[in-house]
């Protein structure tokens, strides 16, 4: 049943998100090509004195038609790229929250709750679809930015030259923290995933609480629940992290201990995010199982 639920959930969300992500990649390619063309035109002839002794200005200075069009187009495409980037990220968030609300608490709930599917399966479907779309949006975003940067690098490679001072700074940093670099990246990614899932589970739980409390003005009540519950949870998380990291804080000051403390804090907060996610999951499950009352 889970596979069937996920299939239909992906179908329902893909019709909105897939075109958006494709659009983001397409705009980034168009912006890169346009920017590349513009920079090539600019660097191909920098201006100067011709053989006949006339002064010729660079395309950006003499206002050539082609350059002007390309310039305007590039500006538009670069702006569009960043706008689509923001829209895509916000859309994934909004759609995931909206899908949860409409599937369970509006007339669509008549369909959801009459299917021979467990509440666990319903929540997991929403969570997995959220993870898939988050990963897809980050991947599309990363790919778009990569193409954009690659385009700049291809047009003006000198822009990516690192000066001696920066090289020295990077080498020094690697000497001091190189041994924990790999683990920091891994823990960082784990923490990011746990935090992402936990925040969505918190949103799901808050919406469920809001809809359980009232049938009128649900948007306001749900928003208030999100505000209050996330406030309380983040306070608890901060206190718990502080308390759990006390043994590491009392180990005395040394570079090794600072590294250990940093790693410990990352690990503790990852575990706490997992606890938060699991707690919110069971809270949501209890409400959907025992308190569902569709109008």
């Amino acid at each position, binding site marked *: 049943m889970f596979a069937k639920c996920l299939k239909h959930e992906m179908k*329902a969300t893909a019709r909105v998100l897939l075109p958006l992500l494709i659009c983001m990649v397409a705009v980034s390619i168009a912006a890169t090509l346009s920017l590349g063309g513009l920079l090539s035109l600019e660097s191909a002839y920098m201006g100067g004195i011709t053989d006949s002794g006339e002064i010729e200005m660079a395309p950006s200075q003499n206002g050539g038609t082609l350059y002007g069009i390309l310039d305007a187009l590039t500006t538009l495409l670069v702006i569009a790229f960043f706008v689509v980037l923001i829209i895509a990220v916000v859309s994934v968030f909004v759609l995931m929250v909206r899908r949860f609300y409409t599937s369970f608490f509006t*007339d669509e709930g*008549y369909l959801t709750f*009459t299917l*021979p*599917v467990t509440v666990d399966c319903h929540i997991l479907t929403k969570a997995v679809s959220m993870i898939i779309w988050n990963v897809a949006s980050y991947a599309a975003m990363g790919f778009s930015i990569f193409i954009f940067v690659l385009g700049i690098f291809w047009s003006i490679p000198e822009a990516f030259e690192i000066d001696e001072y920066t090289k020295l700074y990077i080498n020094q940093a690697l000497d001091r923290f190189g041994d924990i670099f790999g683990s920091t990246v891994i823990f960082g990614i784990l923490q990011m995933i746990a935090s992402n899932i936990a925040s969505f589970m918190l949103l799901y739980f808050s919406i469920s609480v809001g809809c359980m409390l009232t049938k009128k003005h649900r948007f306001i009540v749900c928003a208030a629940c999100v505000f209050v519950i996330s406030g309380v949870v983040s306070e608890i998380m901060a206190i718990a992290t502080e308390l759990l990291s006390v043994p590491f804080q009392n180990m005395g000051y040394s570079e090794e201990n600072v590294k250990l403390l940093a790693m410990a804090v990352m690990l503790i907060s990852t575990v706490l995010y997992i606890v938060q996610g699991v707690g919110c999951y069971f809270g949501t499950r209890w409400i959907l199982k025992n308190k*569902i*009352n*569709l109008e």
Partner: protein
Amino acid sequence: MSFEQENGIREETAALEAASAQEMPKKIKLSHEPLWHEGDTAVLEAQDLVKDYGGGVGLLGVDIKLPAGKIIGLLGTNGSGKTTLLKLIAGILTPTGGELTVCGSKVGVETKALVAYLPERTYLNDWMRVEEIIEFFADFYEDFSTEKAYAMLKSLEVDPKRKLKTLSKGTKEKVQLVLVMARNAKLYLLDEPIAGVDPVAREFILDTIVANYNREATVLVSTHLISDVEKVLDSFLFVRNGKIIMQGDVAPVREACDGKTLDEIFREVYKQCSQNA
């Protein structure tokens, strides 16, 4: 006063009494004849079922046991508790108290696979095409017959390629009816299936229900349009203020009420109850 005169007055009085006795309707006994009999398969059983909405009571201790293979009318005025009962059976409301089982199992995932529910509102995703919704139902319900669904769509003249948002309200309701009746369910719950449609469409909908339901299943039809549905009903439940006030098989009850229609019996029973309240 002469003997003839006295005799005349006596005759006149007797005639008046007889006339008034004829005008005075005989009180209908609020019978609770069991619909389920020993040896019948019980499709639905509710014991002291209560639904409290907080502000108002939806159901006040309902006790029913419904057999398989019957079309049963759940009849009552608006707000009497018909929809609440159907929603509880379908599993989209949580009961405040009491027991509710479908084919011996408590309402849950298992019973949802056996119950085909037609709510009184449209609940399908507008962006979907009719054929996509059919695929959706075929995916989730093992007892769903795609062939039957397409045959019904054809007879109801609904194009499966069309998106729901392009269909009229009446056509959307037809699609929902098709989705329910294309199932080989054990219990069909039809909430006001003929409300808000014209008399011709009512006939059409009732014919579709009667022609397509699983003969071993029970159909529980909720409505306040009794005259339209009574010809298809085997049994009935009268609901008033969250309680079952009368129940029985249609034919014997009509016979006991001097051949009155179910609609007339319903009106009189409601009048009686209102006067007693």
